[in-house]
């Protein structure tokens, strides 16, 4: 049971490119099976990359020709549908939505430019200073500082680890109940 949980945390560390939790690291010191699993997980990316290149070389391209020969017929039926006005091309997102979005963005940019040009510079500086003041009053400890503090980071990581392990254990419990 414990090994299962540690192996899950090892897998999770590989997928999220994060560090293996400290208590799993301690377990690795005394568990051969988990240590071997960690080594395997670490080597899989490279091994599969190598073996993917090797296996793709053996593919028989004959099937491609069969598909390619069927394309003109489908293309013809697609263009017939378009000519009849029922094809997806006529009212597709690209032909309908994109020009409208471009026009809307253009109007927005022009409006903002007019506003920007008509406002006096001093008021702009003042309003920015006011906003910065307001922000300082609202958030006495800067959000970035808070996010970067080691304690906060450790707390977040621990919370994620516990959540993930709980999800894994719940899934297992689910199976046993379902059987």
């Amino acid at each position: 049971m414990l090994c299962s949980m540690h192996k899950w945390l090892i897998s999770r560390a590989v997928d999220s490119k994060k560090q293996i939790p400290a208590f799993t690291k301690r377990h690795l010191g005394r568990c051969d099976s988990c240590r071997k699993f960690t080594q395997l997980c670490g080597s899989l990316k490279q091994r599969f990359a190598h073996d993917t290149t090797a296996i793709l070389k053996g593919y028989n391209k004959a099937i491609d020709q069969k598909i390619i020969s069927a394309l003109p017929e489908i293309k013809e039926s697609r263009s017939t549908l378009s000519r009849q006005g029922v094809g997806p091309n006529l009212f597709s997102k690209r032909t309908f939505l994109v020009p409208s979005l471009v026009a809307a963005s253009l109007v927005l940019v022009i409006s903002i430019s007019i506003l920007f040009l008509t406002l006096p510079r001093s008021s702009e500086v003042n309003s920015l200073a006011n906003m910065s003041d307001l922000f300082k009053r609202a958030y006495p400890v800067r959000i970035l500082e808070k996010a970067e503090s080691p304690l906060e980071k450790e707390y977040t990581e621990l919370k994620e680890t516990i959540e993930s392990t709980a999800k894994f254990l719940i899934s297992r419990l689910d199976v046993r109940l379902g059987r």
Partner: protein
Amino acid sequence: MDKDTILKDLSDEELAADTAAGSCSSFEELISRYSPRLFYFLRHRTASDQNVEDLIQETFLKAFRNIDRFDPKRNFSTWLYTIAARQAVSLYRANKAKKPSLVPMASSQDPQEIVIQKQESQNLWILAKKLSRKEYKTLWLYYAEDMPIKNIAEIMKKKKVTVRVLLHRARINLAKKLDKSVYSESFAGENSAEHKFSFSEIGEI
């Protein structure tokens, strides 16, 4: 610069947009990029080579027919693999209904096939084919396609946590197959079955 070189320089999404604009040669380039990858994605031990070839053909033709619906801002490989996965599910269900038609692919006695099988036997993907279909496909998308979990979840119609569990399960079972003696010890007390977890939410794919 010739036409083929230009096509090879284009991204999948640009080629898809060109196809939507009427270029068949752009789609041919996409076929040459993706058919080998789709072939091995779909080539599980429970599917015959003929089934896999039919699936690839159906996938590309469906993609070509619906290329207008593809949004070039999205990832083309996720879109194409989603179509392939849906086609595979339909075929699997149809085959399940007919039962005896699920032909294991290793039955061929063709000498050339035997040579290929010998060359391939050292390949990790051959070992991975012995895993469950869902585990194999998750491994393929994660390691061969280098896809993020989020995209794999989209293709396989699963939650992200389910994909993570499938990946984990695949690694555990692969480890067991790679080194039976070491791994069988650590699992003997837990569960002797090949796939010890089976989540109700992990459906067929």
